[in-house]
């Protein structure tokens, strides 16, 4: 027995030693997301190492895992992360409030749309560089539109009429996310177009008349002309239906376009899929245009100089152009004007992006630390509205109650009333 114990102790301590043996070279640690741009960086990192002489230790993680890992490492103040990919709207507010982002004072941000930068900066110096943007669009089936004699809708009234006309026993007129919290981002543009907002100057306001009207409209559309069981559907469930030809129109983020028209993934001929701006509402036409991914330097980093070198390389125009060529909708504006790049990008994407960059709203969800909880609250309204086809007598009262709860969340984190 003693022998076994002794030998395990020796074994363990020798393993510890070997782990600490190499520590003091020029290296940085980078956390990437499982995202096409993360893949692109991974493939290009050897070039960067050669040019700069900096060794890059990278890990690539699924987005939820990435957030958990970053939170654990930063919260315990013992992180060795230097640079990391980050989701500004989902975790940005919390990370920034906790002081986990290094302010970026020397970078040039003139190449990014203004509305995008308003989130990346939050009043003070920018704390992340936007990598990828996405915006809300209307995907539709050209062939079904033609067969039914329907024009591409430009307003919400036309959208509802088209959904009604295209709806049949085998094909749903329209689909959009109906699964509570997941639907909140896609509902946002509807709320904006009706003249409402989720949060205004740090106060929840989605119980306003326009916002409630938008939630009713969304519920009526999906409840009357949506696929069966839409209240349990997010994009993972709707995309396959759309690809299988069971849905005539789908409003969601532009990021799915590449997969929809990929012949290896779709049963409908790619030529039958169209993409258009989200129709205008009674008050506005302001689809969301959000930074889904950015990249930042960790405040705790001990190698900031090297980290900034990596950051500048990872956000360079050259790599952004490469990203565009691999179907990633990059945040930089200049690559959207580069004729060489545009040759290989779908014109529908270019047009809808130009529209959203001009008119878009940079938020697609309540921008606060407790995003997840707030999304759950608003999600319940979405489900109530869909289940009653927008007719619910309770909706206004429910919205008021939920606003109270979200305001409590804002108060808990000291964000209430803060612009």
């Amino acid at each position, binding site marked *: *027995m003693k022998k*076994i*114990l002794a030998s*395990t102790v020796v074994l*363990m301590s020798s*393993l*510890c030693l070997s*782990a*600490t043996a190499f*520590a003091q070279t020029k290296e940085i640690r980078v956390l990437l*997301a*499982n*995202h*096409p741009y993360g893949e692109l960086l991974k493939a290009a990192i050897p070039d960067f190492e050669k040019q700069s002489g900096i060794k890059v*230790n*990278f*890990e*690539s*993680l*699924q*987005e939820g*895992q990435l957030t*958990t*890992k970053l939170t*654990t*490492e930063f*919260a*315990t103040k*013992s*992180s*060795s992360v230097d640079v990391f990919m980050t989701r500004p709207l989902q975790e940005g507010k919390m990370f920034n409030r906790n002081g986990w982002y290094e302010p970026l004072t020397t970078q040039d941000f003139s190449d990014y749309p203004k509305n995008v930068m308003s989130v990346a900066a939050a009043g003070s110096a920018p704390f992340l560089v936007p990598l990828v943007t996405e915006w809300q669009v209307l995907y539709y089936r050209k062939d079904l539109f033609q067969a039914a004699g329907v024009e591409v809708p430009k307003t919400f009234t036309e959208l509802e009429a088209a959904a009604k006309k295209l709806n049949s026993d085998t094909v749903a007129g329209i689909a959009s996310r109906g699964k509570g919290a997941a639907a909140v981002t896609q509902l946002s543009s509807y709320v904006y177009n009706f003249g409402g907002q989720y949060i205004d100057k740090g106060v929840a306001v989605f119980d306003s008349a326009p916002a409630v009207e938008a939630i009713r409209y969304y519920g009526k559309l999906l409840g009357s002309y949506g696929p069966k069981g839409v209240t349990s559907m997010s*994009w*993972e469930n709707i*995309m*396959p*239906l759309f*690809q*299988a030809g*069971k849905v005539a129109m789908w409003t969601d*983020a532009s*990021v*799915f376009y590449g*997969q929809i028209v990929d012949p*290896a*993934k*779709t*049963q409908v001929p790619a030529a039958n899929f169209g993409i258009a701006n989200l129709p205008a509402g009674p008050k506005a036409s302001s689809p969301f245009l959000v930074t*889904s*991914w950015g990249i930042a330097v960790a405040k705790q980093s001990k190698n900031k100089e090297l980290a900034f070198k990596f950051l500048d390389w990872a956000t360079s125009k050259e790599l952004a152009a490469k990203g565009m060529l691999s179907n990633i909708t990059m945040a930089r504006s200049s690559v959207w004007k580069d004729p060489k790049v545009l040759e290989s990008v779908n014109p529908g994407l270019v047009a809808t992006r130009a529209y959203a960059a001009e008119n878009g709203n940079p938020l697609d969800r309540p921008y606060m630390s407790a995003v997840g909880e707030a999304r759950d609250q608003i999600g319940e309204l979405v489900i109530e509205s869909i289940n009653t086809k927008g007719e619910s007598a309770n909706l206004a009262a429910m919205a008021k109650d939920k606003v109270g709860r979200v305001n409590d969340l804002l108060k808990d984190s000291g964000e209430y009333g803060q612009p």
Partner: protein
Amino acid sequence: MNKNNRLQNALFYVVVVFISLVVLFPFLWMLSSSFKTQTDIIAWPPKLIFSPTLQNYAKVFGEQDFLKYFINSTVVGGLAVGLSLVIGLPAAYAISRFTQRRLALFILLARLMPGISFLMPWYIIASRLDLMDTYVALVLSHMLIALPIVVWIMSAYFNSIPVELEESAMVDGATRQYAFWAIILPMSGPGIITAVTLSFIFSWNNFMFSQVLSMEKTKTLPIAVYNFVSYAEVDWGGVMAAAVAIMAPAIILTMIFQKFVVKGLTMGAVKG
């Protein structure tokens, strides 16, 4: 009487078939999806007849280096279970023979407490000691999973072995340690196999500790499955094939040792 019996028999089989269908359905779905292309997976209505492809498995073992993750999971699980046996068997013996109820409860607490409460401490310890991305950190954290299982199963098992056996050995001059080593352990095969199987599977499936304590070098299988889940895109075929590959060892292990596991779990159950 006879008729009644036959009816009962038929009913029994109907229930058995029904339950197995419910239990096996997700598994069969996963298995069939792992041989489908992305288009076939999302096809509606679902395709029961399709031309199978091996491309998903090629991705799992080719593009993604699942062999490495297999080795990682095996090393971590194997060492965690092995060390847990070294510490847990004598502990279980002591708990059983000297009726250390409180100690046993205390050990069980480690199993009852949600794993997440250990996460931060583990991370702080590992990063301060420079143990991140090493087997040491993973093995130690996985012992937290394996050790309570070993102790609990084995103390119940030791309870079922008559004390008289050791007593007679000790009358003949053997020390307690020798009696434990030479008499009790050789009789405990089924119990040990049960403890090993269960604790290995729990370690094999563990997600939380591996997620935070491992990086590229020591990534384990449950974390690696997520390599197929990208932003706004899920490679279902890859996920399914990886899931099949991960489940296979656990299923094979359980099938081989099933007889022992059932025996080991119920051993000591009838003894007050």
